[in-house]
């Protein structure tokens, strides 16, 4: 597959935002996880949400997917407020969305073919011959047409992620959410998955949101980055702007420095006291 040119990509970019996150707060009981998050995702863009472990990015991911409701604020997708939708409305919205889970979450009792065909069989009345052609086309897109008869247990981690990607795009979603798509992949699979995300976004004219802590891989493929730290947006901008940022948190994160605003040492008492040494 040839990479699309900038002009081709721009055809899919619309000034109208697909996802609007307005003043979103979320707390588990009295523990605040997200505090006043504002984001806008335009159609046709690839957006990264980054941050360290426990910063609240997975919570934000689940809020966008409609699996959680914000304690304050709203998330609008395609003009509809997610937490105001009933079960039927939420499922109607999810049919237009695709979610790629961290380790693929393929159905282990189904073959690769049946995994990719799953949504087509559940949500459409397409004849089996047409489903066959579509499944083969989706698998061809991720380069794994030859694996259609295999079971998920026979695939490597990287292949499982790519099959899951084929399953995610089965119904050509308008929005694709990726949860840590680069975790645990070898360098080749990493490139293949990263490349697939960018190419599929352009080919399908969709919007992609990548939740990740993999800085280097994300920088190569996304259009815009949001950094989350302690439940707030610590920084945002294009990859170039983030790379050049002089904010100490962003600098530490992007360059993987051991110590900085995120300290190496977990807060603790006197070291000497713990060792039983009197000074």
């Amino acid at each position: 597959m040839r990479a699309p040119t900038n002009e081709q990509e721009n055809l899919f970019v619309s000034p109208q935002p697909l996802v609007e996150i307005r003043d979103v707060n979320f707390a588990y009981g009295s523990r605040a996880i997200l505090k006043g998050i504002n984001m806008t995702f335009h159609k046709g863009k690839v957006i990264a949400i980054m941050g360290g472990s426990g910063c609240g990015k997975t919570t934000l991911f689940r809020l966008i997917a409609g699996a959680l409701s914000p304690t304050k604020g709203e998330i609008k997708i395609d003009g509809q407020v997610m937490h105001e939708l009933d079960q039927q409305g939420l499922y109607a919205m999810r049919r237009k969305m695709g979610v790629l889970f961290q380790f693929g979450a393929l159905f282990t009792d189904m073959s690769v073919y049946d995994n990719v065909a799953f949504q087509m069989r559940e949500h459409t009345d397409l004849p089996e011959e047409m489903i066959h052609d579509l499944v083969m086309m989706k698998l061809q897109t991720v380069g794994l047409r030859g694996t259609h008869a295999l079971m998920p247990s026979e695939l490597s981690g990287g292949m499982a992620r790519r099959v899951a990607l084929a399953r995610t795009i089965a119904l050509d979603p308008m929005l694709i959410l990726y949860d840590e798509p680069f975790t645990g992949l070898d360098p080749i699979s990493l490139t293949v998955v990263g490349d697939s995300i960018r190419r599929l976004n352009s080919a399908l004219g969709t919007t992609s949101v990548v939740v990740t802590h993999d800085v280097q891989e994300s920088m190569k493929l996304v259009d815009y980055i949001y950094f989350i730290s302690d439940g707030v947006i610590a920084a945002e901008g294009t990859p170039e702007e983030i790379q050049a940022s002089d904010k100490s948190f962003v600098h530490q994160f992007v360059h993987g420095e051991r110590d900085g605003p995120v300290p190496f040492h977990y807060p603790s008492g006197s070291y000497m006291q713990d060792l039983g040494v009197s000074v």
Partner: protein
Amino acid sequence: MALVNSVRKIGHRVIEAIWRIGYATHFFVLILLNSGSSFRRFRLTVKELFFTGVMSLIIILVAGLFVGVVLGLQGYEILKRYGSESALGTLVALSLLRELGPVLAALLFAGRAGSAMTAEIGLMKASEQLAAMDMMAVSPIARVVAPRFWAGVISMPILATIFSVMGVFGGYLVGVVYIGVDEGSFWSQMQGSVEFQHDVMNGVFKSFIFGIAVTVISLFEGFDAPPTAEGVSRATTRTVVQSSLIILLLDVVLTALMFRGN
């Protein structure tokens, strides 16, 4: 202070237990409400019937035969004292149809199929398969849980009946073929004393209720299991322990209602 802590702990446990019962009841109602596709797309239920019912056949057949053989031997020993060896067929058949068939088949079903259901659903949850399904706008309750529930409810009475039939055959083998009890009186006494409605159907009804209880517990424990190896392992153990206790408790209640000294 220690006393206050103990009371607090007991209180917590009671509240948690009540909460779980409420949650399980809500889960059961959800299964019933989402059962449409289990019948509209009956092949989903048939697939589960194979895993829960057909795959449990060997253990049910063998256990039924052995229990029948033991019943035949023990029953003959006791009946001989009263000169009633010819009533062996009645003893074997009534013991199996009313009690041993439904109860033992349900206990074996909980150990074989119930634990497998809990582990499967628990692992599907741990590997985010249920979440993925929900994100694809397919209800995991309707697609995964309900077909397994109906497969369990349908297969349990059939397995209990097969258990009883094998048991009667075991009693026949040991009583008639091995010991030499008169074959005619073995079968005719059995035929004369076993009532279809009172004995056979009550036994089938019992196993139907056991089927509901075991399957709901197994599915709920899997669905509610913490998504870790330890969580799934504990849930599987809880399934077997709780199912066994509930089967025995329900048996006491149902027997008291069905056979009040009649």
